[in-house]
């Protein structure tokens, strides 16, 4: 293929299997370069036509990559730098998990370190999707390589748009997985006009598109019940933002990234003069008057004395639950649960506001 000035220099990334080296037995192979296209690269080259040329293919074993994602990414970047690429296409990885992670990581590294636009493709259940979709354009594919013919032209179309610095349209128009950006745009009608129109369409049985898709939240499976509450150690945890005066852990008033734990040793009742509330999502006046309304130490001590519970855990945990990042909260939750477990806590009263 002839090189010309306006032809894009494209790098293609594949794993050992699609690179023709072999299956699992070659999964430990480190990254290496092959000049020109290889395997699925042929379909990519066909889709690129005269607009771009695959100047090199990087092949790397899936295990090698997955065992040291950052190191392997670095090596791949080093290998492709001399080619001065304009574009990187990785995969598609279909349903292959380690391969999907490698494709996502290579794309991210190319974009962040070399400012080279990058696109990959994978199946919606590939673990690489959730790891990289916020940063990387990922085209949905089938779970197996049968989906190659559909996926490749879509990947190439989007890649060419990125390389030409064209405005990238909505996920539904361009066919990529939404990346977690919510952007304000101006509609040609007001919210009131649109919502009435949408309702009328619904009533007439006409098709309409909701502007807000339904989220797919995780389901939390409750823990098994406490066998004997009279022997159980119970902890108090809140996301209502109660902290000791001065907020020693500097917990944020919204989008909190931290939690604090505060002693209840010898405390029979929380005193208002000792605490403050760091939270912008509710009116905390009643909590500031009496912090036990949020973190019910007073009644827990009563229950302890009555023998209704075994013991109140000697620390309460607190953070601020307003406009939070789910992932951050999940990590906080795991950390808190871990500590409670270690301390023999078998039940938690979680108060939210």
């Amino acid at each position: 293929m002839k090189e010309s000035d306006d032809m894009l220099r494209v790098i293609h990334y594949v794993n050992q299997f699609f690179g023709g080296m072999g299956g699992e037995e070659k999964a430990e192979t480190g990254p290496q370069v092959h000049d020109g296209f290889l395997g699925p690269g042929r379909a990519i080259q066909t889709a690129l036509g005269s607009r771009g040329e695959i100047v090199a293919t990087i092949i790397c074993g899936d295990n090698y990559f997955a065992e040291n994602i950052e190191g392997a990414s670095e090596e791949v970047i080093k290998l492709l730098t001399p080619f001065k690429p304009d574009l990187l296409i990785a995969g598609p990885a279909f349903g292959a998990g380690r391969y999907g992670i490698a494709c996502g990581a290579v794309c991210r590294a190319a974009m962040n370190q070399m400012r080279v636009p990058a696109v990959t493709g994978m199946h919606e259940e590939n673990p690489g999707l959730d790891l990289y979709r916020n940063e990387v354009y990922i085209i949905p594919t089938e779970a197996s390589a049968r989906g190659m013919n559909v996926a490749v032209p879509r990947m190439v179309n989007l890649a060419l748009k990125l390389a030409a610095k064209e405005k990238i349209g909505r996920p539904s128009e361009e066919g990529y997985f939404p990346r977690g950006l919510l952007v304000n745009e101006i509609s040609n009608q007001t919210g009131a006009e649109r919502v009435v129109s949408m309702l009328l369409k619904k009533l007439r049985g006409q098709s309409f598109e909701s502007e807000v898709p339904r989220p797919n939240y995780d389901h939390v499976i409750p823990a098994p019940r406490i066998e004997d509450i009279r022997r159980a150690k119970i902890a108090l945890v809140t996301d209502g933002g109660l902290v000791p005066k001065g907020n020693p852990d500097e917990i944020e008033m919204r989008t909190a990234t931290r939690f604090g734990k505060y002693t209840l040793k010898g405390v029979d009742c929380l005193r208002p003069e000792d605490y403050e509330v760091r939270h912008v999502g509710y009116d905390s006046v009643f909590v500031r008057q009496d912090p036990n309304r949020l973190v019910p130490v007073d009644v827990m001590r009563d229950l302890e004395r009555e023998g209704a519970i075994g013991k109140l855990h000697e620390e309460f945990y607190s953070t601020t639950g307003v406009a939070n990042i789910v992932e951050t909260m999940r990590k906080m939750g795991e950390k808190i649960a871990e500590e409670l477990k270690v301390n023999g806590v078998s039940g938690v009263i979680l108060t939210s506001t």
Partner: protein
Amino acid sequence: MRLELHKVKIQDVQFGDNTRINDGVLYVNRKELQELLQADKRLGKVEIELARPGERCRIVQVADVIEPRSKIGSQGSFGFAEKYTTLGEGETSVLQGVAIILSDCRGKGEATISGESHGNIIDMAGPGSEVSPFGQTLNVVLLPQPKDRVSGMDYQAALKMAGLRAATYLARAGENLKPDEIEIYDLPPLTEVMKSIDTLPKITYIFQILSLQFEPIPGEPTLFGKQAEGMIPTIVHPNQVLDGAITSAAPGLNVQTYQIQNHPMIKELYRRHGTELCFAGVILTVAHNNVADFDRMADISASLAKWVIGADGAVLTKTGGGAPELAMARTAQRCEQLGVKTAIAMLHMGADFKDAKYGASTIFSMPEVDTIVSMGVPYTELTLPPVEKVIGGPRSQSEDLTAKGEMVQWMGSIKGSLCQLGSSRLTAVRY
């Protein structure tokens, strides 16, 4: 019920010897208005400032915005600051193009719950003025000082009252003038509204007027002159809403009294009444802060829609942040369960929409609630250039220089840039 809005278009506002309108210029007798407002024993000095579009001026700690209106031929005042007045019928004087801005003059900690150092702001020039309708109105800014030993809540109630009194005071000047425009809102009772249009779907509007995320302020007239806190859902005529029955309850998250006076959803339902739909009343409700009350209020609202109004469909909006979103969604769900089709319009608040894994831009996930209009996301940042003049903020501190400089504000803190009631054309798109 027939309401006529007699609109006098105002081109400029100036201080003058007596309050009047001449050739489209509103002259305000500063001293007279000041004395009227200072009669409230909860308030000390009430400064009044003017801010016009194009001036390099920033209004800070904005609590609410009110359009000047008065009931022609009535002694009562708009929004029930004085004598009780029948609302929704008759003639109402409106000064179009003017807005009364209430600036909370307490110390920063008390006045700003948003976490923004200057609270909600209005810019009269630059990008901030372009995103909010109140950057384009002629603004009469009220700066009431709290009297010593007046509680925060008493002050907030007094602040709202001052705004409502000023609204009546100014609009009286338009009562005897020939209006530039008369807007007519005329809708028969529910028992007759279907006549001759009985093939059209009956649509009701479920309007959440108050959020109990924040402690309601006793004495703040949010519903027919009283605080709406303890109400159960009730049906009102849409004209009553347009005519001052409801004011935006503090802290007024993305809802201003001005927007309720010009309620975009009610105007839209009126516009389509008789051609595409039959506008079958407004149901008012309150967003509680606990599940039992969500269920209770949702069921009462949905039952009114289904069994009292006999509605085919309902549109819903919310006020406030997260809990009101759940309350609205629960109400829509209950309507759907009873066979009343719904569509909701909302701002995205509270959800973690950055994590694409969940695809979240709502905090609820209910299969029945599948018809949703996005009215934007408040967290976009806007860089605002420095201004020459700052109006508002606590008087006790020396002039606050940071409010004059360039600042980065999130969209939600520019008063009027977002609207929970449907007036803006913003929509949040997932990329």
